[in-house]
């Protein structure tokens, strides 16, 4: 039996990324006692610490037009973006930028001035007519800065504290239970309000490192009765030896250290004129491939190459400067083939980093429909990005904005509600739930179960190139894992205890992915079905929500407001410039 520690706090923030720190700092600004936990090291884990740190630079005083920007996001997101949230994020971006400045975060500068970049109209680069501009925090520095700042203002930061079960009392959330992955101590975190900021829900498929996002917060909320959104949309990224080599070079990178990220993103951003299939405007304006690499490999065209040869001189120079002029072969540039990069992927695609999916936000305060519980950042299902990532820099901005909003709402909730206690019975229930894997005498190893799960999720023919038959097949295996294997997960060490819960959560996330993918009988954005290869308007101008109904997973279709529909009088090709594989 692990020894038990109790912490009493006003606001519990689970997750120490951008969203978590914004939630914590803003709650602290309201004079509340704040506890922030991270299953790794707050400020050095999560997407946040990996990101380039680009954030949206939206300034009304410079004449930026919110509608123009949101229209762009709508087109990129294939109309499933929540336009209200997009506007909120844009309008609040400047205030959040000032927060960052006040907290000591440093930004990249050029010629002594804030370095503003992106795809501004006048450079002629990027999707023509794109207004979108960004600025960049000094990457790998900003999150640790947020951490020190939070410590300075008295946020109780708890590292290696994995939270895995919410405490519920009379329909409200009263904190959570977790454990330290080193000491193996159990932590009962009694809180008046709880903010989930645990990031996205990947499946630990090799991609740009995503092992931290296993949907922990989403599953906690789901189990407590909240809905999750958009589990059918995948977010593909690639992973390779070249990337690792490139990251090693990171120290010399001027603007961005995640060179591979740059390497796949920026060349595409030039638009047009790539070899073969990539000639088509099938990429979103930010250059993210949809399922094409998978589709091409499926068609027998692997290995695939990224072609830099037509990249404009401006871009190539900028790019090489950014990555610190590495040796070509280290990033996979195959000189013999000209300026081509072997598609640097061991697996074709992996899943979901961000589309504004997550726990369904029931209002603009990041509530999730359960009193005392809020979600922020990648965990928060605002649908600010729809079927695809809507715009660069948007994810971080969304994390800041939702973090700040959740904190404000949590503070208001605390002052309005007097009841915060939690019963012994509920603590005992949660403790039992959390301790199951570590208290079992024997059972299945989490790593083995994860491997089994990978067998039916990572290969491209399950979640990238989808078909009802394969989705069904995978679903029945996942159901088996859920019913017969997950309850027998066994952790031998506190570290493995974390893995056990992550595995359990990933199994549920996978089930949601299969069910949502089956449910959406069309293709759109990052959801591609061979058996329904085209968008189906207006039938599927709707979101898919997953919710617990008894012990069952129920699926709901939530139509988007009519006002957000594309102009259905226009022909399909004009509504959707991006072409899907079978079109």
């Amino acid at each position, binding site marked *: 039996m692990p020894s038990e520690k109790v912490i009493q706090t006003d606001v519990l923030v689970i997750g120490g990324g951008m969203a978590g720190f914004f939630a914590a700092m803003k709650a602290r600004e309201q004079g509340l006692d704040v506890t922030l936990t991270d299953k*790794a090291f707050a400020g050095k884990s999560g997407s946040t610490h990996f990101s380039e740190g680009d954030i949206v630079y939206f300034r009304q005083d410079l004449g930026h037009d919110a509608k123009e920007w949101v229209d762009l996001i709508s087109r990129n997101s294939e109309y499933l973006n929540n336009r209200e949230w997009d506007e909120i994020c844009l309008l609040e971006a400047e205030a959040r930028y000032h927060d960052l400045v006040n907290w000591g975060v440093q930004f990249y500068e050029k010629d002594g001035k804030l370095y503003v970049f992106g795809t501004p109209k006048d450079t002629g680069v990027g999707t023509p007519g794109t207004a979108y501009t960004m600025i960049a925090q000094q990457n790998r520095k900003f999150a*640790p800065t947020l951490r020190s700042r939070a410590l300075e203002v008295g946020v109780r930061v708890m590292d290696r504290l994995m939270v895995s079960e919410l405490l519920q009392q009379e329909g409200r959330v009263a904190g959570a239970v977790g454990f330290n992955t080193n*000491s193996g101590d159990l932590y009962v975190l009694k809180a008046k309000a709880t903010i989930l900021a645990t990031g996205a829900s990947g499946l630990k498929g090799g991609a740009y*490192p995503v092992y*931290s996002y296993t949907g922990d917060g989403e599953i906690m909320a789901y189990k407590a009765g909240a809905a999750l959104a958009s589990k059918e949309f995948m977010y593909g990224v690639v992973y390779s030896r070249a990337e*690792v080599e490139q990251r090693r070079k990171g120290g010399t990178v001027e603007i961005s250290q995640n060179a591979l990220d740059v390497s796949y993103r920026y060349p595409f951003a030039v638009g047009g004129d790539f070899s073969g299939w990539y000639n088509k405007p099938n990429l979103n304006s930010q250059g993210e491939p949809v399922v094409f690499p998978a589709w091409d490999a499926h068609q027998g065209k692997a290995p695939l190459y990224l072609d830099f040869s037509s990249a404009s001189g401006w871009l190539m120079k900028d790019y090489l400067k950014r990555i610190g002029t590495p040796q070509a072969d280290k990033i996979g540039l195959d000189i013999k083939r000209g300026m081509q990069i072997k598609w640097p992927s061991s697996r074709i695609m992996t899943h979901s980093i961000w589309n504004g999916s997550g726990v369904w936000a029931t209002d603009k305060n990041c509530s999730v429909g359960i009193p005392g519980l809020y979600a922020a950042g990648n965990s928060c299902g605002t649908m600010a990005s729809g079927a695809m990532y809507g715009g660069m820099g948007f994810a971080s901005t969304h994390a800041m904005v939702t973090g700040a909003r959740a904190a404000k709402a949590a503070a208001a909730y605390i002052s309005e509600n007097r009841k915060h206690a939690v019963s012994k019975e509920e603590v005992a229930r949660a403790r039992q739930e959390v301790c199951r894997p570590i208290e079992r005498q024997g*059972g299945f*190893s989490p790593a083995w179960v994860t491997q089994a799960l990978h067998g039916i999720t990572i290969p491209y023919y399950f979640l990238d190139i989808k078909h009802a038959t394969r989705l069904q097949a995978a679903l029945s295996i996942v159901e088996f894992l859920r019913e017969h294997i997950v309850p027998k997960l066994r952790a031998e060490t506190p570290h493995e205890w974390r893995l056990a819960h992550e595995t359990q959560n990933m199994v549920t996330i996978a089930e949601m992915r299969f069910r949502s993918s089956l449910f959406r009988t069309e293709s759109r954005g990052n959801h591609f079905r061979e058996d329904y290869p085209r968008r189906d308007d207006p039938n599927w101008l709707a979101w898919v929500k997953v919710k617990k109904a008894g012990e069952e997973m129920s699926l709901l279709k939530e139509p988007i407001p009519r006002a957000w529909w594309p102009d259905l009088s226009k022909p399909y090709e004009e509504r959707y410039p991006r072409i899907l594989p079978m079109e």
Partner: protein
Amino acid sequence: MIETVDAELCNGCRLCLDTCPTDCFRLDTLVSGRAEQPPCQVACPAGTDMRRYLYLVREGMIDEAIGVLEDCLPLASITGRICPHPCETACARNDVDEAVNINSLERFVGDRWIADKPASARLLYTAEVAIVGSGPAGLACGYFLARMGYPVTIFDSMPEAGGMLRYGVPDFRLPRAVLAAQIDYLRAMGVQFRMNTPIGGGTSLDDLAREYRAVFVAAGAARSRKIEIEGRALDGVLWGLEFLREVNADQPVSASGKKVVVIGGGNVAMDAALTVNRLGAASVRMVCLETRETMPAYAEEKQQALDEGVVIDPSWGPKRIAGRDGKVAGMELVRCLRVSDGAGRFAPAFDDKETKFVEADLVILAIGQEADLAFLPHDVHVTESRTIRVDALTLQTSRPGVFAGGDIVSGSASVVEAIGAGKKAAVSIDRHLKSQDIRADRDLRPQRVLKPPRERIPHIPRRAAPWLPVGERSGNFAEVKCGYSDDAARLEAQRCMTCGSRAVIAYPEDCQMCLFCERDCPTQAIYVSPDRKEIPLMAWR
């Protein structure tokens, strides 16, 4: 996938642990097989293993941290309050920002130990050991021997145990309840206390040496050194230690409304000044030979004295005490030019032309302590400076089976030195009783970690211990320095750089090849290969 941490390069800074998003590392703070110790440990006379227990505090593993102190530092709740902490002076973090507040962390763990962990000891041997003196040296020796399984009896002439901790150090720095809890803890371990039993009175040291298989003499240096000075017999002249002893024994000492002059610049003088101030003195003036900077009292106490309105009058020597009607009326002081000679020997020089007179109705002389060695038999040899002569390695006296340590050997020193001596003596006594070689493997001078962490350590401000507001201190003996909360302790412990530990790749299979560790490591000790090894998986465990 993460492949290697080069143990030769790794300095134990722990940055990789505080970086890896998937929790691949663990820290080996024990580093068995390696002789180097962190600077703090080398500097600690009791050899406390800070690195290990501070790391555990940081991880929230307080019980385990207590376990480390059990092995190396008894009386932590006492040293955690009043130790001059040479460890902090040596702390490698001084080169980064400021030393770790080891003292407050020690107190935190020490207090939790006494509060939460019941005492236990098993009697394993029948050979009985006698200890003379219940000061920290005697208590520490008793603790370690009881822990090893020996029956131990501590003799003391005073009614209550603790030595200077009980009758010297005032309550506002070391509350009696804290000391009492430590003594109770030893009692619960089975240590016997025979109070009101002066050795050399009814029972002699020879008697003890006959009745017990080994004796540890830790009788301290509990007598004020007296000087010949005109007026010393006047009513209103007190000696530092005796004054403190009376106050600590709850005897009425009247100081109310008096103008007090304290002579001396050491800790006893300081405690006397702070104490008499609390007894309602109208004014307290400390007069010392040294300059303000060189006076030997601890910096912290100097600050406290200033805060509490004690006037420090440095670079003056006492010339005579003036009296009226047999009572003290004032003091004549003479300018002190220097305290010691070129060779560092105590040899004060005065400028007789510069004198001054200060009014006083109470004078406390606190100019040093000495040991009372009258009870020692002739075969226990003493030194010129009137301390017991011992073998430095084993603390054995000239008489086999009799060991000595603490102030009675070192001259007045500190609690932690006394504890170190008690610990050393316990090892000697154990070996002596087992007829083992008491010298073997003991002359190992601990090596200092050569290159402690420094680069890339994020700056975090040191957390001072909170102090009772000055306004709440007068007229009472409430403790002035307060302890850390759980949060403060955890945060301050995060500042420890765990110098000389080794990072261990505990879970390589969970490496996501982000390379954060490799890039953050200040010593380039880490290599992450771009290839992933397949590690055979066990389906069940």
